[in-house]
């Protein structure tokens, strides 16, 4: 029910820009429910986003919201978190935003293990610019810039983040949106860099070109191909907690350095 989470929305900013059948709205609701379940102070929550359909989410949310430049959201968020560690910093990005133009910022945020929760909405395509392929478009799938099928192989973003040093990674889908909320709670509770990939549907720019007749077909595809364990067939992918690790967190480490140098005092 929207009324349960309405307090977290800028209702004056609605209606939203997303197309009928788009999964971003579902993911947004799952994200907001996580913040509600965590009972975070709305005034201390910061949501930073890049550029793209997914990143337009920040405009609709009643937190401290920062809609930045394409790919750079994590870098803005890094400055914010380091300057003011008591803020709860979330970052929302699209698949192109986080893995192409922002790929370098993603691996370095992971390397620093900075206490930020990143939500990547993976709709397999550049939605906002009209359906060009992204580094997460599956091999052979069609996009306006891969009209004969995508020759590239996609990243596994969670593998990438884990290798770069992130300490929590998880995946859910727009269909598995209750799971998504739970995973986002886990991600927030991890004191380090956490990444949650939400597989979502873009019927207009991806589905139409790839033999999905309706948005519902895409959601059913998510249901059928998401698996929690065991062998992965053709288009299957894992959902749930994917990895957890422990490592020093950057902002806390900097705070300790400051204390050590200043002999315990902590003003300014």
């Amino acid at each position, binding site marked *: 029910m929207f009324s349960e989470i309405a307090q977290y929305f800028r209702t004056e*900013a609605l209606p939203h820009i997303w197309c009928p059948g788009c999964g971003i709205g579902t993911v947004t609701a799952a994200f907001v429910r996580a913040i509600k379940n965590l009972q975070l102070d709305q005034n201390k929550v*910061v949501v930073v986003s890049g550029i793209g359909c997914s990143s337009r989410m920040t405009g609709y949310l009643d937190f401290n919201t920062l809609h930045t430049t394409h790919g750079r959201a994590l870098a803005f968020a890094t400055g914010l978190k380091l300057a*003011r560690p008591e803020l709860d910093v979330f970052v929302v990005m699209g698949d192109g935003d986080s893995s192409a133009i922002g790929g370098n910022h993603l691996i370095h945020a992971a390397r620093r293990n900075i206490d930020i929760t990143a939500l990547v909405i993976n709709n397999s395509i550049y939605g906002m610019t009209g359906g060009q392929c992204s580094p997460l478009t599956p091999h052979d799938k069609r996009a306006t810039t891969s009209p004969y099928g995508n020759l590239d192989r996609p990243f596994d973003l969670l593998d990438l983040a884990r290798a770069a040093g992130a300490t929590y990674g998880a995946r859910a889908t727009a269909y598995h949106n209750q799971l998504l909320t739970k995973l986002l709670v886990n991600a927030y509770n991890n004191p380090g860099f956490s990444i949650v990939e939400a597989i979502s549907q873009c019927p207009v720019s991806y589905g139409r070109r790839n033999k999905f007749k309706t948005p519902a077909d895409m959601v059913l595809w998510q249901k059928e191909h998401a698996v929690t364990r065991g062998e992965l067939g053709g288009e299957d992918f894992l959902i749930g907690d994917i990895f957890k690790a422990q490592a020093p967190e950057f902002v806390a480490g900097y705070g300790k350095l400051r204390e050590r*140098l200043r002999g315990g005092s902590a003003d300014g």
Partner: protein
Amino acid sequence: MQGNEACAEGALMAGARFFAGYPITPSSEIAELMAEKLPLAGGSFIQMEDEIASMAAVIGASLAGVKALTATSGPGFSLKQENLGYAAATEIPCVVVNVMRGGPSTGLPTSPAQADVMQARWGTHGDHPVIVLSPYSVQECFELAVKSFNFAEEFRVPVILLMDEVIGHLRERVELPDAVEVVDRKKPVVPPDKYYPYENDASMVPAMANFGDGYRHHVTGLIHDITGLPSGKPAVTEKLLGRLNHKLDRYLDRITLYEEVAVEDAELVVFAYGCTARSALEAVNAARGSGLKVGLFRPKTIWPFPVEQLEKLSGKTFLVPEMNCGQLVGEVERVVGRRQVHRLNRFDGELITPDEILLKIQEVMSGVQ
């Protein structure tokens, strides 16, 4: 003390408590000093993965309420442009130090130049306000670093401290004051439910709430209305861009910093800034010594360009020595007329010497008389 050091000291005294950067010659000393001093001062230093990220982190920190800067040089300055535009559009105070070196591209990494004068003004896309200050001595690196922060905070614009390799690495005696005048951004005085983050008042500079202080609001690089939310309406666009691009107008008297030497009766005025102004001053003094009526106009604020000040001198002949192929000279021509202006350019990575300027002065003056 070195120019880069003086710049770091000025930033600290002005209240900077955050630095994000990426190493590049000849600016790296500023980052190194900040890495050492900021944690001691209760601030934070972070070496980012590139200059794009550094600029982003600086803006993030400023939005959290902490005065922030980055320092770079030519190639890095090019990478700052994307988010410099963002800072200008969203009116987030920040300071970018660019210790200029020879370009284009990797160019001459360790040689001086004044190659980024136009990039500092027009490097990012779209019409936007910006303030650019250019020191000519180590003492002035300190003073203008303080000014940079004060201007950024008061007017909510990115301020670029445009140094050059000579000034950055120059060692001179400086006098550091115990304290300086420090300006802080205007905070909202209304309760959060009455706060419009981009509301225009007589000052043209809206009050700025920090993230986390209870004034939840939206910040976007899209054209936005007074609530901060995106809008594509022509009237909103015109209003925002109109205000942004005119908000400095009423403060030009205070923003435009310059020095004039013997211009009153001068027939020829040398217009010079940064390290070139040091040679120019020497040349002007020598010319005066030999009876030539020559003066110096030295802008410390190069953007906004000192139009009114130069208009007062129009009718005189101008000589503009620059360590580039001719950049700011175009602005001088625009104000005083093309026929009145002579150029002296050097772009081989070497300084323009006082003798070269003196020779040119003599050559021009023989034509004038």
